[in-house]
Protein backbone atom coordinates (compact mmCIF):
# COMPACT_ATOMS: atom_id res chain seq x y z
CA UNK A 1 0.00 0.00 0.00
CA UNK A 2 1.44 3.33 -1.08
CA UNK A 3 0.39 6.31 1.01
CA UNK A 4 0.34 9.87 -0.33
CA UNK A 5 3.13 12.18 0.80
CA UNK A 6 0.68 14.25 2.90
CA UNK A 7 -0.59 11.12 4.68
CA UNK A 8 2.93 10.03 5.58
CA UNK A 9 3.74 13.54 6.84
CA UNK A 10 0.58 13.50 8.97
CA UNK A 11 1.32 10.05 10.41
CA UNK A 12 4.91 10.98 11.22
CA UNK A 13 3.82 14.22 12.88
CA UNK A 14 0.94 12.76 14.87
CA UNK A 15 2.92 9.73 16.02
CA UNK A 16 5.95 11.83 16.93
CA UNK A 17 3.78 14.15 19.03
CA UNK A 18 1.64 11.32 20.47
CA UNK A 19 4.71 9.76 22.10
CA UNK A 20 4.42 12.45 24.76
CA UNK A 21 1.37 14.68 24.66
CA UNK A 22 2.92 17.18 27.11
CA UNK A 23 5.86 17.85 24.80
CA UNK A 24 5.80 20.68 22.26
CA UNK A 25 7.74 20.11 19.06
CA UNK A 26 8.30 22.60 16.25
CA UNK A 27 7.33 21.77 12.68
CA UNK A 28 10.98 22.35 11.69
CA UNK A 29 12.18 19.70 14.16
CA UNK A 30 9.65 17.15 12.89
CA UNK A 31 10.52 17.94 9.26
CA UNK A 32 14.22 17.50 9.96
CA UNK A 33 13.78 14.27 11.92
CA UNK A 34 11.74 12.59 9.18
CA UNK A 35 13.47 14.27 6.25
CA UNK A 36 10.26 15.77 4.90
CA UNK A 37 9.48 19.16 3.39
CA UNK A 38 8.86 21.79 6.09
CA UNK A 39 6.37 23.61 3.85
CA UNK A 40 4.43 20.45 3.15
CA UNK A 41 4.43 19.54 6.84
CA UNK A 42 3.22 23.02 7.86
CA UNK A 43 0.15 22.61 5.65
CA UNK A 44 -0.51 19.11 6.99
CA UNK A 45 -0.17 20.32 10.60
CA UNK A 46 -2.74 23.05 9.91
CA UNK A 47 -5.17 20.37 8.68
CA UNK A 48 -4.44 18.22 11.74
CA UNK A 49 -4.98 21.22 14.04
CA UNK A 50 -8.33 21.96 12.37
CA UNK A 51 -9.32 18.33 12.98
CA UNK A 52 -8.37 18.64 16.66
CA UNK A 53 -5.57 16.07 16.47
CA UNK A 54 -2.82 18.56 17.33
CA UNK A 55 -2.71 21.92 19.02
CA UNK A 56 -0.56 24.83 17.93
CA UNK A 57 1.27 26.50 20.81
CA UNK A 58 2.39 30.09 20.30
CA UNK A 59 5.29 32.00 21.82
CA UNK A 60 8.81 31.05 22.84
CA UNK A 61 9.24 27.31 22.90
CA UNK A 62 6.03 27.03 20.92
CA UNK A 63 5.29 24.33 18.46
CA UNK A 64 2.75 21.57 18.23
CA UNK A 65 1.35 19.22 20.82
CA UNK A 66 -0.82 16.13 20.41
CA UNK A 67 -4.36 16.81 21.59
CA UNK A 68 -6.20 13.57 20.85
CA UNK A 69 -6.59 10.34 22.79
CA UNK A 70 -3.69 8.07 21.92
CA UNK A 71 -5.71 4.97 22.86
CA UNK A 72 -8.70 5.99 20.76
CA UNK A 73 -7.36 7.63 17.60
CA UNK A 74 -6.69 5.03 14.91
CA UNK A 75 -4.46 5.19 11.86
CA UNK A 76 -7.62 5.21 9.75
CA UNK A 77 -8.72 8.55 11.19
CA UNK A 78 -5.46 10.16 10.08
CA UNK A 79 -5.29 8.39 6.73
CA UNK A 80 -8.85 9.28 5.72
CA UNK A 81 -8.07 12.98 6.17
CA UNK A 82 -5.57 12.84 3.33
CA UNK A 83 -6.47 9.81 1.20
CA UNK A 84 -9.55 9.24 -0.92
CA UNK A 85 -10.62 6.15 1.03
CA UNK A 86 -14.00 6.12 -0.70
CA UNK A 87 -12.32 5.88 -4.13
CA UNK A 88 -13.03 2.16 -4.48
CA UNK A 89 -16.76 2.61 -3.94
CA UNK A 90 -17.27 5.16 -6.74
CA UNK A 91 -18.41 3.67 -10.08
CA UNK A 92 -15.94 3.65 -12.94
CA UNK A 93 -16.21 2.83 -16.65
CA UNK A 94 -16.57 -0.90 -17.22
CA UNK A 95 -17.78 -1.62 -13.68
CA UNK A 96 -21.16 -2.80 -14.96
CA UNK A 97 -19.69 -5.44 -17.27
CA UNK A 98 -19.46 -9.03 -15.95
CA UNK A 99 -15.64 -8.76 -15.79
CA UNK A 100 -15.92 -5.33 -14.12
CA UNK A 101 -18.29 -6.69 -11.49
CA UNK A 102 -16.07 -9.69 -10.74
CA UNK A 103 -12.98 -7.45 -10.56
CA UNK A 104 -14.87 -5.12 -8.29
CA UNK A 105 -15.51 -8.00 -5.83
CA UNK A 106 -11.76 -8.61 -5.59
CA UNK A 107 -10.73 -4.97 -5.25
CA UNK A 108 -13.46 -4.39 -2.66
CA UNK A 109 -12.09 -7.32 -0.64
CA UNK A 110 -8.61 -5.74 -0.72
CA UNK A 111 -10.00 -2.32 0.27
CA UNK A 112 -12.07 -3.77 3.12
CA UNK A 113 -9.06 -5.58 4.57
CA UNK A 114 -6.96 -2.40 4.35
CA UNK A 115 -9.64 -0.28 6.03
CA UNK A 116 -10.23 -2.86 8.74
CA UNK A 117 -6.49 -3.02 9.44
CA UNK A 118 -6.16 0.77 9.70
CA UNK A 119 -9.30 1.04 11.84
CA UNK A 120 -8.01 -1.51 14.35
CA UNK A 121 -4.61 0.07 14.99
CA UNK A 122 -4.62 2.91 17.48
CA UNK A 123 -1.70 5.32 17.80
CA UNK A 124 -0.88 3.64 21.14
CA UNK A 125 -0.76 0.23 19.45
CA UNK A 126 1.56 1.50 16.71
CA UNK A 127 3.88 3.13 19.25
CA UNK A 128 3.86 -0.09 21.26
CA UNK A 129 4.85 -1.98 18.10
CA UNK A 130 7.72 0.44 17.55
CA UNK A 131 8.96 -0.06 21.14
CA UNK A 132 8.65 -3.83 20.78
CA UNK A 133 10.63 -3.78 17.53
CA UNK A 134 13.31 -1.67 19.23
CA UNK A 135 13.44 -4.08 22.19
CA UNK A 136 13.68 -7.26 20.12
CA UNK A 137 16.23 -5.75 17.74
CA UNK A 138 14.04 -5.96 14.63
CA UNK A 139 14.37 -2.21 13.86
CA UNK A 140 16.91 -1.62 11.11
CA UNK A 141 19.39 0.50 13.08
CA UNK A 142 21.14 1.67 9.92
CA UNK A 143 17.91 3.39 8.91
CA UNK A 144 17.18 4.95 12.32
Amino acid sequence: MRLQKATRCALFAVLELAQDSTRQVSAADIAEKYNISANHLAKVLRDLARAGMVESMRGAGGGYRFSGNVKRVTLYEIVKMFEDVEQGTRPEAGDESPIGQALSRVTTEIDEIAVSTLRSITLATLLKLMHRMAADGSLNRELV
Partner: protein
Amino acid sequence: MPETVDGLTIRSARTTDVPSVVDLDARITGLNKDDYWSDMFERYGRRQNRYFLVAEDSEETLVGFIIGEVRAWEFGSPPCGWVFAIGVDPDTRLGKIGSTLFDAICVCLKESGVDTVRTMLAREDELNMAFFRSQGMMGGSFIQLEMALTDEIGARQQAGGDA
Protein backbone atom coordinates in the same frame (compact mmCIF):
# COMPACT_ATOMS: atom_id res chain seq x y z
CA MET B 1 -3.54 -21.48 38.17
CA PRO B 2 -5.23 -19.82 39.94
CA GLU B 3 -3.28 -16.58 39.77
CA THR B 4 -4.19 -13.22 41.30
CA VAL B 5 -3.08 -9.94 39.70
CA ASP B 6 -4.24 -6.57 41.10
CA GLY B 7 -7.23 -8.12 42.85
CA LEU B 8 -8.22 -10.10 39.76
CA THR B 9 -8.09 -13.88 39.99
CA ILE B 10 -7.52 -15.86 36.81
CA ARG B 11 -8.34 -19.56 37.08
CA SER B 12 -9.66 -22.47 35.07
CA ALA B 13 -13.43 -22.44 34.65
CA ARG B 14 -15.61 -24.70 36.82
CA THR B 15 -19.02 -26.15 35.99
CA THR B 16 -20.55 -23.64 38.41
CA ASP B 17 -19.14 -20.75 36.30
CA VAL B 18 -21.19 -21.68 33.22
CA PRO B 19 -24.35 -19.69 34.19
CA SER B 20 -22.22 -16.59 34.85
CA VAL B 21 -20.47 -17.02 31.48
CA VAL B 22 -23.88 -17.37 29.80
CA ASP B 23 -25.08 -14.16 31.50
CA LEU B 24 -21.93 -12.23 30.63
CA ASP B 25 -22.00 -13.38 27.00
CA ALA B 26 -25.71 -12.48 26.79
CA ARG B 27 -24.92 -8.97 28.07
CA ILE B 28 -22.23 -8.58 25.39
CA THR B 29 -23.95 -10.23 22.41
CA GLY B 30 -27.63 -9.92 23.31
CA LEU B 31 -28.04 -13.69 22.77
CA ASN B 32 -28.67 -16.29 25.45
CA LYS B 33 -26.80 -19.46 24.52
CA ASP B 34 -27.03 -21.86 27.51
CA ASP B 35 -26.50 -25.06 25.49
CA TYR B 36 -23.60 -23.61 23.56
CA TRP B 37 -21.68 -22.59 26.71
CA SER B 38 -22.40 -25.88 28.49
CA ASP B 39 -21.03 -27.68 25.45
CA MET B 40 -18.01 -25.34 25.34
CA PHE B 41 -17.27 -26.13 28.96
CA GLU B 42 -17.51 -29.89 28.29
CA ARG B 43 -15.17 -29.60 25.31
CA TYR B 44 -12.66 -27.03 26.59
CA GLY B 45 -13.06 -26.89 30.36
CA ARG B 46 -11.29 -30.10 31.31
CA ARG B 47 -9.10 -31.45 28.54
CA GLN B 48 -5.41 -31.36 27.88
CA ASN B 49 -4.13 -28.46 25.74
CA ARG B 50 -7.55 -26.80 25.88
CA TYR B 51 -8.09 -23.80 28.11
CA PHE B 52 -11.25 -22.17 29.41
CA LEU B 53 -10.13 -19.48 31.84
CA VAL B 54 -12.24 -17.05 33.82
CA ALA B 55 -11.45 -13.82 35.65
CA GLU B 56 -13.13 -12.96 38.90
CA ASP B 57 -12.86 -9.78 40.92
CA SER B 58 -12.13 -9.47 44.64
CA GLU B 59 -15.83 -10.15 45.37
CA GLU B 60 -15.63 -13.40 43.37
CA THR B 61 -17.85 -12.01 40.62
CA LEU B 62 -17.05 -13.38 37.18
CA VAL B 63 -15.93 -10.43 35.04
CA GLY B 64 -14.36 -12.15 32.04
CA PHE B 65 -13.45 -15.35 30.25
CA ILE B 66 -11.19 -16.56 27.46
CA ILE B 67 -11.04 -19.86 25.60
CA GLY B 68 -8.26 -21.35 23.48
CA GLU B 69 -6.54 -24.53 22.46
CA VAL B 70 -3.57 -25.97 20.63
CA ARG B 71 -4.30 -26.89 17.01
CA ALA B 72 -1.93 -28.61 14.65
CA TRP B 73 -1.31 -29.24 10.97
CA GLU B 74 -4.24 -27.35 9.52
CA PHE B 75 -3.00 -26.78 5.97
CA GLY B 76 0.56 -27.43 7.06
CA SER B 77 0.55 -25.18 10.14
CA PRO B 78 2.80 -26.57 12.89
CA PRO B 79 1.13 -26.75 16.32
CA CYS B 80 0.02 -23.30 17.41
CA GLY B 81 -2.30 -21.73 19.94
CA TRP B 82 -5.77 -20.53 18.99
CA VAL B 83 -7.88 -18.10 20.96
CA PHE B 84 -11.47 -18.18 19.75
CA ALA B 85 -13.56 -16.58 22.47
CA ILE B 86 -13.08 -13.70 24.86
CA GLY B 87 -15.57 -11.73 26.88
CA VAL B 88 -15.15 -8.96 29.43
CA ASP B 89 -17.85 -7.33 31.55
CA PRO B 90 -18.63 -4.10 29.61
CA ASP B 91 -18.74 -2.14 32.91
CA THR B 92 -15.13 -3.05 33.67
CA ARG B 93 -13.57 -2.47 30.24
CA LEU B 94 -10.20 -0.71 30.10
CA GLY B 95 -9.47 -2.28 33.49
CA LYS B 96 -6.87 -4.64 32.02
CA ILE B 97 -9.11 -7.70 32.50
CA GLY B 98 -8.86 -8.67 28.80
CA SER B 99 -5.07 -8.18 28.81
CA THR B 100 -4.68 -10.26 31.98
CA LEU B 101 -6.81 -13.08 30.55
CA PHE B 102 -4.91 -12.96 27.26
CA ASP B 103 -1.54 -13.04 29.03
CA ALA B 104 -2.71 -15.98 31.14
CA ILE B 105 -3.85 -18.06 28.17
CA CYS B 106 -0.62 -17.22 26.32
CA VAL B 107 1.34 -18.64 29.28
CA CYS B 108 -0.80 -21.81 29.18
CA LEU B 109 -0.29 -22.17 25.43
CA LYS B 110 3.45 -21.60 25.73
CA GLU B 111 3.63 -24.25 28.44
CA SER B 112 1.90 -26.60 25.99
CA GLY B 113 4.91 -26.18 23.72
CA VAL B 114 3.71 -23.73 21.05
CA ASP B 115 5.28 -20.37 20.20
CA THR B 116 2.53 -18.73 18.15
CA VAL B 117 -1.02 -17.73 18.99
CA ARG B 118 -3.72 -17.00 16.40
CA THR B 119 -7.27 -15.82 16.32
CA MET B 120 -9.94 -15.03 13.72
CA LEU B 121 -12.33 -12.11 13.86
CA ALA B 122 -15.01 -10.46 11.79
CA ARG B 123 -13.57 -7.48 9.88
CA GLU B 124 -16.15 -5.18 11.43
CA ASP B 125 -15.45 -6.37 14.98
CA GLU B 126 -13.36 -3.29 15.71
CA LEU B 127 -13.49 -3.66 19.48
CA ASN B 128 -11.89 -7.11 19.58
CA MET B 129 -9.64 -6.41 16.59
CA ALA B 130 -8.21 -3.32 18.31
CA PHE B 131 -7.85 -5.29 21.55
CA PHE B 132 -5.87 -8.15 20.00
CA ARG B 133 -3.70 -5.71 18.04
CA SER B 134 -2.99 -3.78 21.23
CA GLN B 135 -1.71 -7.06 22.68
CA GLY B 136 0.79 -7.31 19.82
CA MET B 137 -1.10 -9.52 17.36
CA MET B 138 -0.73 -8.71 13.67
CA GLY B 139 -1.93 -10.11 10.34
CA GLY B 140 -0.51 -13.61 10.04
CA SER B 141 0.53 -15.92 7.24
CA PHE B 142 -2.90 -17.52 6.81
CA ILE B 143 -5.93 -15.96 5.14
CA GLN B 144 -9.50 -16.86 6.00
CA LEU B 145 -11.65 -17.75 2.98
CA GLU B 146 -15.33 -18.62 2.79
CA MET B 147 -18.23 -19.16 0.43
CA ALA B 148 -21.95 -19.68 0.64
CA LEU B 149 -23.03 -23.31 0.33
CA THR B 150 -25.55 -23.11 -2.47
CA ASP B 151 -27.26 -25.60 -4.74
CA GLU B 152 -24.65 -24.74 -7.36
CA ILE B 153 -22.22 -27.02 -5.50
CA GLY B 154 -24.41 -30.08 -6.04
CA ALA B 155 -24.74 -29.21 -9.70
CA ARG B 156 -20.94 -28.84 -9.97
CA GLN B 157 -20.44 -32.26 -8.37
CA GLN B 158 -22.87 -33.86 -10.80
CA ALA B 159 -21.05 -32.19 -13.71
CA GLY B 160 -17.72 -33.67 -12.63
CA GLY B 161 -16.20 -30.77 -10.60
CA ASP B 162 -13.11 -28.62 -11.18
CA ALA B 163 -10.47 -30.20 -8.94
